[in-house]
């Protein structure tokens, strides 16, 4: 299945600052706005590289597992793909709508009811109001929370909350899905549902990137795994491990 790449990283560098008050950052942006030059590309005081020259590409319909120790830059890669943050150096190309499930239930408000939160979280994930009107029953059914849709989510248990959030997420019409440690949701039967949902996405030629420390889950779902090194390492390898 050789198709065109949907995500390409070309020698991507990303620096972060450890300082709490970022005097430099604002000045940098404003100066670069006036002069037209891009910001500082070298490290200055209190900064470190979270990614150093990462290159890889992902093809359409693939399911990629990202593995590596904490702080190795996995989440940074997902954030770069979803456009939340920008690379300091290098180039990133992404073709298609991205549904970043970096955190389940982003934008949900505890005082709003289940159904109200479906609209809130759904539009954040890129669904239109019209699409949500059609899909809301399907979402509720998937979550198995029919009885509680008109209850404020602050009264939900944490499992119920995550089930609702995940149900909204998998109904997004995006082409690229980013899951950051979100697959350990709910009980066994719900997990099974999630896996089926993921396979359905893949069957429809969607692309998925999963961050997980659970090798078993990755082996089960992914066709390639990307090892991400610790941030301070000089080179981050994109080791493609074929699974049987």
């Amino acid at each position, binding site marked *: 299945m050789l198709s065109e790449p949907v995500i390409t990283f070309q020698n991507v560098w990303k620096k972060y600052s450890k300082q709490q008050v*970022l005097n430099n950052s*604002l000045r940098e*942006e404003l100066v670069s706005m006036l002069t037209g030059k891009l910001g500082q590309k070298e490290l200055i005081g209190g900064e470190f590289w979270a990614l150093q020259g990462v290159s890889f590409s992902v093809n359409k319909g693939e399911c990629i597992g990202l593995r590596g120790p904490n702080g190795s830059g996995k989440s940074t890669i997902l954030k770069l793909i979803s456009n939340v943050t920008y690379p300091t150096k290098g180039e990133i190309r992404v073709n298609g709508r991205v549904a970043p499930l970096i955190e389940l239930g982003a934008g949900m408000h505890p005082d*709003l009811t289940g159904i109200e939160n479906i609209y*809130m979280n759904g539009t954040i*994930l890129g669904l239109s109001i019209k699409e949500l009107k059609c899909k809301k029953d399907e979402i509720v059914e998937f979550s198995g929370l029919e009885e509680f849709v008109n209850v404020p989510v602050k009264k939900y248990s944490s499992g119920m909350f995550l089930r609702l959030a995940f149900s909204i997420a998998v109904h997004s019409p995006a082409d690229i899905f980013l899951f950051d440690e979100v697959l350990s949701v709910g009980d066994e039967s719900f997990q099974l549902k999630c896996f089926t949902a993921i396979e359905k996405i893949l069957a429809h030629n969607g692309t998925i990137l999963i961050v997980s420390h659970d090798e078993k889950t990755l082996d089960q779902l992914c066709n390639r795994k990307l090892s991400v090194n610790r941030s301070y390492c000089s080179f981050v390898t994109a080791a493609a491990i074929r699974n049987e």
Partner: protein
Amino acid sequence: MIHRLYPYKDLLLVFIWREFLIRYKQTAIGVLWAILQPVSLMLLFTFIFGVVLHTTQKDYPYPLFYFAGVLPWTFFSGATTFAVTSLSGNFNLVTKIYFPREIIPLSGIAINFIDYLIGLTVYFLLLLVYRVPLTWNILWLFPLLAMLIMYTTSVSLLLSALNVYYRDVKLATTFLIQFLFFATPVIYSIDAVDNYWKYLLFLNPLTFIVENMRRVTIEGREIILWQMGIELLGIVILYLIVYRIFIRIERAFADVI
């Protein structure tokens, strides 16, 4: 701005709707708060300046005079106060998902505008009660409103963006708004001010807006066009500069928030 926001129009709508719902969730009187707030301020000012201090503000009825000032003022201060912490408070969204960041402060402007419109209907009722003769000049209210929204948007975007970097902004804003309250002719009339100071006060676009909102409704007089031209130019330039800065530094919000 429209070009940037159009693909996200549903998100903006849902944000406005969310803020509106949250605002009146678990309240007993709900939307009535939108009326209660400006009306109680108006009554307070009428009492203090009319009954206690016996000042005379032109020859309009006091309630009309103060209500006309309080309405745009509450809109401005409400929207700005909402905006300052809107981005930093929603850091879990800003660091996780991309959308044009101005949507968050803009939704605050929108719900405060809804409150403003509710207050405006009360204002028109008051105009009828006091039998103020309405003229076509009342239509000037539309451009004045547009200027008010544009100015509020600029201030809101700027403060919300800066607060991402420096939380000092949040603290300074409380003070700034109090300061601006007295620099805006809400509780006095600009006609009572000496010429020299008048020019200084007109540097604040709110002065022009509030003063003329009274003029075109209560007095039924037209706007002085060259004044409006200068103020409008100032507001547009401010907006363009602020929006450019906002878009530029928006890229780094997720990293510094």
